[in-house]
Structures are given as C-alpha cells and as structure tokens.
C-alpha cells in the first residue's frame, strides 16, 4: 500500500549512478557462479566476518533488546522525518554550515561539482561513501574535470582496478591479495617494483600513496553514517583513520547523505554505536568515530556543506510496508549471512547495494520495474532478518515487493503473463478439493514416463529444475486415496 505524501514520487533517475545493472539477476548470477575464484574469495571472506560477528554479538547480554531499541528509534524517526530534517537544517546553519537539498542524483552531482569548482580546485579526496556510489559522483566529477581519489583502502583497490564495489563494507571482497598486488603495480604511481602480496606491504604502499593526497587536498567529500538533528552534528565511523584525515585536513568539506540517516538526538546514537560495529566488522567498537558540527574557526575545514539527498527515498517512505528499508544502517550483516550473495557476489545485483538489503532497497529507489528481478533473488531463508541489527524484516519486504511487481505487471499488460496465468489456474484448482483431486489424478498420467520413481527431465519452465535435479514421480496412490481406502470403510 502506498501513501500520497503531497508530492510526485521521484525515483532515482536513469542514466546516472550505480543502481541499475545491464542484465537481470539470474543472468548476471549465472556468469558469477561460473567464476570459481570469485566464489572462493567471497566464501572465505564472508565466513570469516560471519564468525567474528557471531562471537562479539554473543558477548552482549541484551543484544535482542538493543535490536528492538534500534528498530523503534528508526520507526519513530521515519514517522516524523520531515520535522527532524528541518531541525537538522536549522542546527547545521546555526553552526556555520550550508545545507543543500537534492531531489535526485543529477541535482546532487551538480551541487557538489559547483561547490568544488567554486574553490578553484580540481582534486578532491573522498571518504568511503555508499551514497556517492549510488549517485555516480566520481564519474560526474570526472566529466567536470575534477579528479576524486578514494582513500578507503578497499575503495581505492576498486577505483585503481577500474572495477565496481561488490560489498557495501568490503568493496573489494571479490579480490584476493595477489590480485591487489597486481593492481597496485599496474596503477599506483611510484609503487616499489619489488612489492609482494604480503598484506602489510600492500597496506604500506597504499599508505604512502594516500598520505601525499591527504596533505595536498584542499577539498574533501564524505558521506555520513548518522546526522544528529538537534545539534546539527555529522558522524562518520570507520576503521582505517583515512576518514579522519579527510574530515580534518582540507579547507572545504562537502558531506552528502541520504535523508534517512538522521537521528533525533545524541542519545539515540548510544544504540546505533553499539549495534553497528559488532554487526558490520565484528568489532566491539569501531576504531575511528569522527563527529563534527558546522565549522570551528582555526580548527578543521573552514567551509562545510551538507547535501541532503532524496533520490527515491521519499517515494520509498510513501510505501507503508516498504519504508522499513530506510531503517538500514548499512552494516552489511545481511550480506555476510546470505547464501545467495555468498555464491553470486555483489556484482550480480547490478547495484551498489547488493545482497538482501540491496534487493529491497534498490528497486524502491529506482522504481520497481527497473529492478524487478531483485526481489526474487532470495530463497526467503530468513538468515538476513536474524542478522539485521535493526530487525528489518527483509523476507517480508521481498514478498511485498514481489507482489507490487506482479500487480504493476498486471496493470501494464492486458494479457496475463504465462506465470500469472499458471498461478491463477493452480489457485483455481486449489480452491476446490474436487478439482485438486482431479489434478492429482491427471498428474498420475505422467507416471509411465518416470524411471525408478523419478523424472530426469520436465517440460518448460520446470526444465530449469531438472537441469540439476531429478523430480519425484507421482505415487500410485495419493494420501487422500489411502485415507479413503483404509479409513472410510
């Protein structure tokens, strides 16, 4: 069910940003499934994070209560999102920051590019940010002659490899260290030619490369993990310290964040700063938590801009059920436990938001028809819900979006799709025990085609099943018939 919020639903525009892949999930997944190196890399990495997370979650006696608190703070915040955003804008402005509102990716990219060009600079450093991936900021800046350097190690590996991120927390999860060494040798200027694939050596090479960028950059672009409405404070949590360098050294700081990242007060952070690090990196506390409020003369950036991005979020908020996806704190725990993600990797989802949360977030941001295969990219096993620190009921959201898709399809097409027709027929049969029984009898006609009680191949579309599995043949007697034969005498 959707609600009209008084303005037209604006989705993330086509032709810009990282929310749309070239092919449907099943097709893209098929290619990924054939890449054994990728599957090995991702399988190993997700298992490691999974085990780390499970251990530190186990330590917290009130973990379930914390999850409940997180869920409730988010739900209450979303119910009055407009108020909290206005409060945030006032507080940021009062402390010397400038707030910009961007309806979509194009507006946000234009605002940021103009702000950078106005400083006279053409090089910026970036803190790892999902939202800038979502809007395709780096590409948009490049078109304006601005070079953006990613300073998160994994994000840097992706950028140097001319690659796409495949995990929201570990963007280079699909690469192993031998591949990283190769990328550095090929793409990183001044890298020692005798570089080995020892993780420490790789990190030191990246550190030397980045240090020079930090010390020269006059402008930085960041995302935000949270924004506290009543004080106008922005927060970035990270593990490497690169974020802190970007947030303190440059003269101008531009932060772009999705409007759902706001929390009402500092007190609310107490809940999320416990939930986030344990869920994402399996750490008790994240190593670097940077918070800044407006500008402070003589300390840190002297110009601060905050770009508040919609890009489909208001449209998502208008869906009573689907809006729950906006509670996401981007911890990636759902990805690490998802059996589908583990085998296909992130690229198969075609969006910078992969995995279970991506499968419900992406189609809502773009409009469901632009990503209609994603809500079906799940076996509904429910592992994601159990792992989610703010208790987003991802399986139910997937089912809800599947229904929105089939209903929109039914509206668009006068004739039902073969699937809709087949399911209507099954539904009609199942509404009557007499018809169900007749169908069972009809099914039995296929028995002579079975070999030792099984079918080696079935007709389309069930042939997809028998590419790798034998299907059971109908038994000589159904349960119903057995009951009648033995009990109804």
């Amino acid at each position, binding site marked *: *069910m959707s609600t009209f919020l008084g303005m037209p639903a604006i989705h993330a525009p086509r032709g810009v940003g990282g929310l749309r892949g070239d092919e449907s*999930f*099943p097709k893209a*997944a*098929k290619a990924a*499934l054939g890449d054994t190196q990728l*599957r090995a890399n991702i399988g190993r990495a997700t298992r490691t994070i999974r085990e780390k997370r499970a251990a530190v979650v186990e330590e917290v006696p009130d973990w379930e209560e914390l999850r409940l608190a997180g869920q409730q703070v988010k739900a209450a915040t979303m119910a009055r999102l407009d108020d909290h955003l206005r409060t945030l804008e006032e507080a940021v402005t009062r402390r010397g920051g400038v707030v910009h509102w961007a309806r979509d990716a194009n507006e946000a990219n234009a605002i940021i590019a103009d702000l950078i060009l106005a400083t006279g600079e053409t090089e910026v450093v970036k803190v790892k940010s999902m939202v800038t991936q979502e809007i395709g900021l780096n590409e948009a800046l490049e078109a304006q002659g601005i070079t953006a350097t990613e300073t998160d190690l994994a994000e840097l590996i992706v950028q140097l490899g001319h690659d796409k991120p495949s995990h929201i927390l570990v963007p280079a999860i699909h690469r192993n260290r031998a591949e990283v060494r190769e990328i550095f040798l090929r793409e990183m200027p001044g890298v020692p030619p005798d570089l080995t694939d020892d993780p420490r050596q790789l990190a030191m090479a990246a550190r030397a490369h980045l240090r020079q960028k930090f010390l020269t950059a006059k402008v930085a672009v960041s995302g935000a993990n949270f924004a506290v409405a009543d004080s106008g404070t922005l927060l970035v949590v990270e593990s490497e310290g690169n974020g802190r360098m970007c947030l303190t050294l440059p003269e101008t700081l531009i932060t772009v964040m999705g409007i759902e990242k706001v929390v009402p007060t500092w007190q609310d952070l107490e809940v999320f700063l416990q939930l986030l690090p344990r869920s994402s990196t399996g750490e008790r506390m994240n190593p670097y938590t940077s918070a800044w409020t407006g500008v402070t003369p003589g300390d840190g950036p002297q110009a601060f801009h905050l770009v508040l991005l919609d890009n489909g979020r208001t449209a998502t908020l208008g869906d009573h059920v689907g809006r729950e996806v906006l509670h996401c704190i981007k911890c990636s725990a759902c990805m690490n436990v998802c*059996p*589908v993600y583990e*085998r296909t990797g992130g690229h198969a989802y075609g969006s910078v938001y992969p995995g279970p949360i991506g499968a419900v977030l992406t189609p809502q941001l773009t409009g469901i028809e632009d990503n209609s295969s994603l*809500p*079906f*990219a*799940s*076996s*509904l*096993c*429910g*592992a994601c*819900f*159990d792992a989610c620190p703010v208790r987003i009921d991802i399986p139910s959201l997937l*089912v809800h979006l*599947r*229904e*929105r*898709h*089939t*209903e929109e399809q039914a509206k668009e097409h006068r004739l039902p799709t073969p*699937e809709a027709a087949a*399911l*209507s027929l*099954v*539904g009609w049969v*199942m*509404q*009557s*025990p007499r018809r*169900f029984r007749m*169908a*069972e009898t009809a099914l039995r006609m296929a028995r002579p085609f079975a070999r030792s009680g099984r079918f080696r191949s079935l007709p389309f*579309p*069930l042939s*997809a*099943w028998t*590419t*790798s*599995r*034998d*299907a*059971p043949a*109908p*038994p000589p*007697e*159904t*349960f*119903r*018939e*057995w*009951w009648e034969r033995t*009990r109804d005498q």
Partner: protein
Amino acid sequence: MKVALFVTCLADGLFPEVGRATVTLLERLGHEVVFPKAQTCCGQMHTNTGYGRQAVPLVRHHVETFEEFDAIVAPSGSCVGAVRHQHAMLARKAGDDDLAVRAEATASHTWELSEFLVDVLGVEDVGAHYPHRVTYHPTCHSLRLLRVQDKPLRLLRAVRGLHLVELPDADQCCGFGGTFAVKNADTSTAMLADKMKNIMSTRAESVTAGDSSCLMHIGGGLSRLRVGTRTVHLAEILASTENSVGR
C-alpha cells in the same frame, strides 16, 4: 486428543508416505486423527511468488476447513509458517478483518509435528526404532519462522538404534525456496551443491528434515549424483518401529 491432520498439498500428491507416517505415529501415541477432506493448500506458493491476492481465497478455504478443530498438525515447518505468519496478514491486506481474526485463531492451534509432540503432547521418546546413521537438516522455515529449535533433535536422540551425526553448516539454506529453484535455478543449484557436499561429508545413510519440499530438492540432487544417501522425512523415522517393515 483429537488431532486434525493438515497433510499439505505436496505430501498429499507426491509424498503420501509422510502423511501415512504422521497418522501412524499419532495413533500409536493414542490420539484420534481426523483428515478434513476439504483441505487443499496453504497458498504459500502464491504469496511468496508475489500473488498474495490470489492466495486469499486459499486462506479462506483453509480457515473454513480447519477452524473448528482444537489441534491441527502438519508435517511441514514451511506450511505451518505460512499459516502462522502469512494468513492473517494476507486477509488484513485484502481488507477482510473478520477473516484475519479467524485466521489468527486457527493459526494459534496449528502446529508443526515436532512442536506438537514436544510442546503440546510433552513427549520426546515416541517409541521409534530406526537403526541407521542419520543427519538432520533444519529447514529454514522450521528454524527461523517457527523457531522449533532443538525439538526435532531431541526427538531423534530418543529414537532407538539411530546414530545422529551433525551436519556441517546445517543452518544454511538448501536452495529450494519454492519458485526460487526455478526462477534462479543456477544459484539454487550452487546452494544445493554445497548442502549435498556437507551431507555426504557426514557419511550418513539418511538425511532427514521436517519438510517434504526441502527433502524433494535435496533428494532430487542426490538422485542425480547417484549417491546412496537417501532422504527421509522426520515423521517417517518417528513412525518406524522394530516391527514396521520398510525403511
């Protein structure tokens, strides 16, 4: 106790031995089993494929068939999950609050077999005998929708002659997921391959679970690989005795 058997459409049409075993077991424990013949399907396939509206008549039919009974038992975590978590929601979404209330009432006395045995009847030793090496796959819906926890394992541990071996990565999905296995056949196959690898590593003669659907998927894969491990529903193990012929 008088128990209404919700056999599920899959067990009725394709795996009648699971229904027969459930009847045998409950009768052996001294209960009267009735089979409401009007029953068809819980509508989960429609709901989970995105045809929730088409599932509403099936919900109504299910409620009308079962609401008069005090105890309804199904040998399927998945179908009981649909009854408990989807029926009232579907009715409410369709604007039928009366049906939603009746669906909630019906769901409140619908149990998956292991829940019924352990929680309602309070038995763990059902007097079964099954002298085989067995591994247990906790199906996703039993594990996470119903939270049956270790009830099936407690029942299995009490079976005489049964050698229970732990399944590595037991809580990982087998890749069935209803229409997922058809719509995303390749990914489903990859998930199944790992599940089979883990099953074979246990060197179990049989793999058991509380759901015919997951067992159909796993069994279909094992059959293709021509390995000896067979699938057997939990109800069939619990129904077996020293005197029973068959598996």
